[in-house]
Structure formats: structure tokens, C-alpha cells
């Protein structure tokens, strides 16, 4: 499967334009490493750091000149930050957008695994749980992941094992869709459901992730419970809406989930 993609990449003209979207909020410790990692593996592709109104010197860092920087005037949250990157991708004609966290969790050597699956899906999620491994998040995170897995299976009839993963690749159709509507806080699980219900094909691939190198997790304990409730309400009500909207747009796709 990967071969199909690689062949395509070798032909200069049909090579898709890839944009790496790196959302960053106060990531001065880890960001230079992340950019260097991406540059080493993808010397020719555009890296876009979307700075979510950092209060440290995130955007003045060494190595940042290797990337394009879009700086939000104030903190908008991870959802709006990623969406800004997607808007950039749409406006500048990128075919593929890879969401790649600025905290050093994600590894550039795993990106090809995601890209390879984009021939078969609109969105590919890098999963820590698809294959057995030693990853252990906090108990809250694991509880959250479990609940979303359940909600996912009920709503879209498919299991996404790692729906809080922010390591993703989007194809052109998903980019355009998400640039217009991307959920707010704790957007990862919700965007999976939104995508599926709007008829886009979502796939998971197993990836290896790093322990966090620096910076703060974007969600604390109490907050994650709060976001969880919010997302469940949003998703629960959204069920009555997304189906109708996707049919209106004519973008509905009957076989909306490939992952089995």
C-alpha cells in the first residue's frame, strides 16, 4: 500500500504539496527540536508553526527560520489554532496537511505511515493503541479515551482506538471541510466524529510516540472532565445536525468508515 504512494511521490509533478501544521503554545523547550526533526525528514515541505498567542519567546526561537510562522494575536485554544493552519493550507493550495504537535510528542519518522494511508482515506490518525505497547497516559486521559471510543462506536459504528491523538494527516477534502468547521476545546475526539458523520473516510495507523519533552499538557485534570462533558453535549446534539448538513453539501459518502 505504501508503494502506491511512494511511486506517486517520485514523480515531481504529481507530488502532493504537504503542509506541516505545528500548533504551539509556550513551547520554547521543545519547538526547536520538533522543527529540526521535521526538517531532517522532510527537507522540501513547508512547516507552519501556528503560535497560539504564546507568552514566552516561542516565536523568537533558534531554528524557527526553518519554518513559516503564523502568530495569533491572543490565545484562542488548540482547536482554533489547528484550524488557522488548515485555513492557511486551503488558501495556499496544499493537498495534504499534517498536524504535528509542537511539544515533541510526535516523531517525524512516523509521518510516512500516515501519508501512505491518505490514498485510502480523507483523514488518517496516528494511534498509540492500535498495536499493543507500553503507553500509559494519566488515568483521566485513559478514561476519556475509553469513553470517546465508546461514543465513537455507538455513533459512527467504528472503533477509533486513539481519538485524542493530535497526530493526523488530512487529505484535500478533509482540509477544506475542517477549515470551515473545526470544534473548539478538546477538538480531537469531536473532529473524528464530525468527519465520520459528514461522510469522510477516517483511518487509523499504529505509530510510536515520544514522551513529552517540555511544555505543559494543554489540558489539566478538572478541565478535562469539563471538556469531556462539553464535548459529549456537543457531539450528542451534533448527531441531529451533521447528518443533515453533509447530505445538503452533497459530500456524503455511504461507506464512511474504512477502519475495521
Amino acid at each position, binding site marked *: 500500500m505504501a508503494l502506491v504512494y511512494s511511486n506517486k511521490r517520485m514523480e515531481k509533478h504529481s507530488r502532493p504539496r504537504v503542509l506541516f501544521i505545528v500548533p504551539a503554545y509556550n513551547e520554547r523547550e521543545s519547538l526547536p527540536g520538533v522543527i529540526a526533526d521535521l526538517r531532517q525528514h522532510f527537507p522540501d515541505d513547508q512547516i507552519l508553526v*501556528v503560535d497560539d498567542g504564546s507568552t514566552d519567546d516561542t516565536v523568537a526561537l533558534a531554528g524557527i527560520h526553518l519554518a*513559516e*510562522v*503564523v*502568530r*495569533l*494575536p*491572543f490565545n*484562542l485554544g488548540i482547536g*482554533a489554532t489547528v*484550524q*488557522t493552519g488548515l*485555513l*492557511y493550507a*486551503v*488558501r*495556499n*493550495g496544499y493537498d495534504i496537511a499534517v498536524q504535528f504537535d509542537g511539544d515533541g510528542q510526535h516523531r517525524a519518522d512516523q509521518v510516512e505511515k500516515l501519508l501512505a494511508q491518505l490514498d485510502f482515506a480523507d483523514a488518517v490518525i496516528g494511534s498509540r493503541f492500535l498495536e499493543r505497547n507500553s503507553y500509559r497516559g494519566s488515568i483521566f486521559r485513559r478514561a476519556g479515551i475509553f469513553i470517546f471510543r465508546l461514543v465513537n462506536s455507538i455513533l459512527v459504528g467504528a472503533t477509533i482506538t486513539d481519538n485524542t491523538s493530535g497526530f493526523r494527516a488530512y487529505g484535500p477534502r478533509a482540509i477544506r471541510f475542517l477549515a470551515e468547521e473545526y470544534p473548539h476545546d478538546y477538538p480531537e475526539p469531536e473532529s473524528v466524529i464530525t468527519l465520520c458523520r459528514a461522510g469522510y473516510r477516517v483511518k487509523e495507523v499504529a505509530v510510536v510516540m515520544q514522551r513529552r519533552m517540555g511544555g505543559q499538557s494543554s489540558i489539566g485534570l478538572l478541565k478535562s472532565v469539563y471538556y469531556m462533558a462539553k464535548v459529549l453535549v456537543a457531539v450528542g446534539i451534533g448527531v441531529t445536525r451533521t447528518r443533515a448538513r453533509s447530505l445538503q453539501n452533497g459530500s456524503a459518502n455511504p461507506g464512511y468508515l474504512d477502519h475495521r
Partner: protein
Amino acid sequence: MDQQIQVISIIGSVGVMLFVTQLIRRRKLREEYALLWFAASLGLILISVWRGLLDRAAKLLGVAYPPSLLLLAGIAMGFILSIHFSLSLTRLSEQNKRLAQELALLANRIERGEGRPAPS
């Protein structure tokens, strides 16, 4: 006793009226809200001046205890207004987010010295 409460409520509602008028004069209130609060303060004055009004309205609606009609009306109005403000806030924050995103993208384009976005 009865006189006292009437005097107090008339003073109170005239005070509200003056306050609203002042806000309108200084253009601190948008017209739609100005009209609403103006009407509300007029209503308050009417009720405190014309003492029989509340009792009649209560009787007409079959409310046994007239003051509770006043409470109900107040709570209903507060509720409707809160929903209205929540809606406005949601819309405003959505627009605010979009503006910030567009601003960031524009600033980036200027830094790159680019006039137009590449055709997509």
C-alpha cells in the same frame, strides 16, 4: 405604610428611567436595548403609580397572589434576555476567533511580502 412603599417604588422606577435615559444620551446603549430598557422602566413606573393595575392583571390571568405575577414577569424577562445575550456572545466570540485567524494569516502574508494568496 401603604403610602410609603408606593413612594419608594415610584422613586425607584423613576431612578431606573433616569439612568436608562442617561445611558441613551451618552450613546452607551445600542438602540435595540435602549428601547427595551426604556419600555421596562416605563412599565415599572406605570405599576407603581397605578396601584390597581397589578391586581387587575392578576385577576385577569387567574393569579391568586398579585405580587407573584410581578415576580414571574421579572424572571421570564431575565430568562429571555439571558438566552439572547448567550446567543450574542456565541456569535461574537465566533466572529472574534475568525477575525484573529484572518489577522494572523494576513500578517504572515505581509511578512512574506506577498500580495495575493497562491491560487488554490
